């Protein structure tokens, strides 16, 4: 399979001294499910946002689907963003609007300013939105106001909103950080399913190492703005995890859990 995304020597610097990312190099194949792990403040979110240029990288080259993203001007940038869906920790729904209205927001990038501003969507777009909501098990919630949903349901609306864009890639910024274990599993299962059945590339920021190990085809470990691990979950050792988090053996929560498992 060909490379959908290629980052070469991408750096991001805030002000004079703060380096958020330095010389990031990696490429993503079509349909891959990649987890990005690392401690808070390591630059995971910045990395994700550099790809769809919500944050502008200071230097380097980002090629998405054969287009150099850093060179794009306004209109072409909008077109690029329509091809990349994004999912957030806090769902970021417009709470006062209905579920389907929120999902249809994913189509705005394709519409003229006037049609988008007035919310005039085509029948086909609406059908697609309803189809996606059915797929995500939200058929009873379609016309509910978004603030009446649970966290897990809101995140599924977020996924539907990203999918209605017909994206080639999904960027997920800690999608399960605010959810309970049950809802987290549902969301991760949906993301894996989407990646496998629809062939959409998924790049997801995670805090839970065990989740990353379980779901990903590949794991990228980020520490202090640099990639310190890039490989399959199977090859990942305890030492490497500790290297990513800069911790000593026995200091992470998952270590103590493992000790318990060994003991029991």
């Amino acid at each position, binding site marked *: 399979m060909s490379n959908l995304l290629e980052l070469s020597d991408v750096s991001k610097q805030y002000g004079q001294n703060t380096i958020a990312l330095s010389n990031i190099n990696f490429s993503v194949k079509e349909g891959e499910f990649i987890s990005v792990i690392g401690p808070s403040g390591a630059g995971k979110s910045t990395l994700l946002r550099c790809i769809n240029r919500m944050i502008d990288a200071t230097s380097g080259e980002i090629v998405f689907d054969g287009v150099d993203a850093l060179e794009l001007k306004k209109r072409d940038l909008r077109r690029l*963003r329509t091809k990349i869906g994004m999912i957030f920790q806090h769902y970021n729904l417009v709470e006062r609007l209905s579920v389907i209205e929120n999902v249809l927001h*994913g189509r705005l990038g394709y519409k003229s300013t006037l049609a988008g*501003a007035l919310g005039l969507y085509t029948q086909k777009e609406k059908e697609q939105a309803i189809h996606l909501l059915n797929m995500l098990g939200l058929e009873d919630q379609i016309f509910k106001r978004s603030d009446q949903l649970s966290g897990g349901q809101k995140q599924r609306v977020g996924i539907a909103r990203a999918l209605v864009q017909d994206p080639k890639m999904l960027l997920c910024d800690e999608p399960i950080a605010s959810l309970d274990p049950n809802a987290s599993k549902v969301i991760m299962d949906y993301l894996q399913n989407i990646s496998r059945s629809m062939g959409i590339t998924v790049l997801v920021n995670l805090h839970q190492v065990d989740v990353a190990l379980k779901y990903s085809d590949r794991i990228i470990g980020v520490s202090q703005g640099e990639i310190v691990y890039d490989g399959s979950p199977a090859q990942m050792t305890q030492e490497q995890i500790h290297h990513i988090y800069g911790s000593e053996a026995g200091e992470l929560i998952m270590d103590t859990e493992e000790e318990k498992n060994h003991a029991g």
Partner: protein
Amino acid sequence: MRMEDTNKSTVLTQSKPIKVKPLNKTAIVIRSTLFCLIALTILGFWTYDYKEVGLVEGILSTIANFTVMFTEPHFSHFTFTEGLYQVLITIGLALLTTLIGAVISLFLGLFASENLSSRKVSNGIKTIVAFIRAVPTVLWVLIFAVAAGLGSVAAVIGMTFHTVGYLIKAYSESFEELDEGVIEVLKASGANWWQIIWQAVLPSSITYLISWTFLRFEINFAVAVAMGAAAGAGGIGYDLFMASSFYLDLRELGTITVYILIFAILLEVVAIRVKRHLKTA
């Protein structure tokens, strides 16, 4: 762990009372300001020139005036329907100025909020608006009266002017309260500025916008009454002016006050209804 334990024990074994509010610079400034204000108030009452009016006597005759106003209201210089018509003119003045002001403020408010526009533009608008608000409405009406002449035209322009100053501040602060993430998500999906405004910003802040607008409408109703008296803008305010300083008719003053009171309460009820409807719908 051990370090924390020893720290905790030293705090607990201290015999001194533990202060929840430490006496820092802010606390000293606030307390001394309050003390000065209290001292000035007492001094003020102490040094009043009461002339020959006794406090008790003054209060009693005011009560007597109020009793006459509200227990014996009558119509002498206008009929019931004429009075109603005059109140409607005042309402019209308030409605017109609020409406024009709200439309202008909505657009300028978007540019005045920092998260939707640039810092430069936002600060520029906010500075101008702060200046407009610093000058009282009556003064703006009188300023515009130089060009337009005393009357309803000057009143409309002046009141709109001050309304715009007030609402831009209120609206832009409502927009700035908005969750940054909602804007981010639409931007990330390729939506442009106007689409984000209409699809996310306005739906999220509509309740705030409505309640600020209603609040301003109530203020404008009160100002419109005053403008009828002070700037010859017509309406019930002009009748109020005539009854109080030309005919010296306390009873008719009472009638007018009742008119204004009823309409003010009506406005309040409508405002509450609309807000409740918006919150649940």
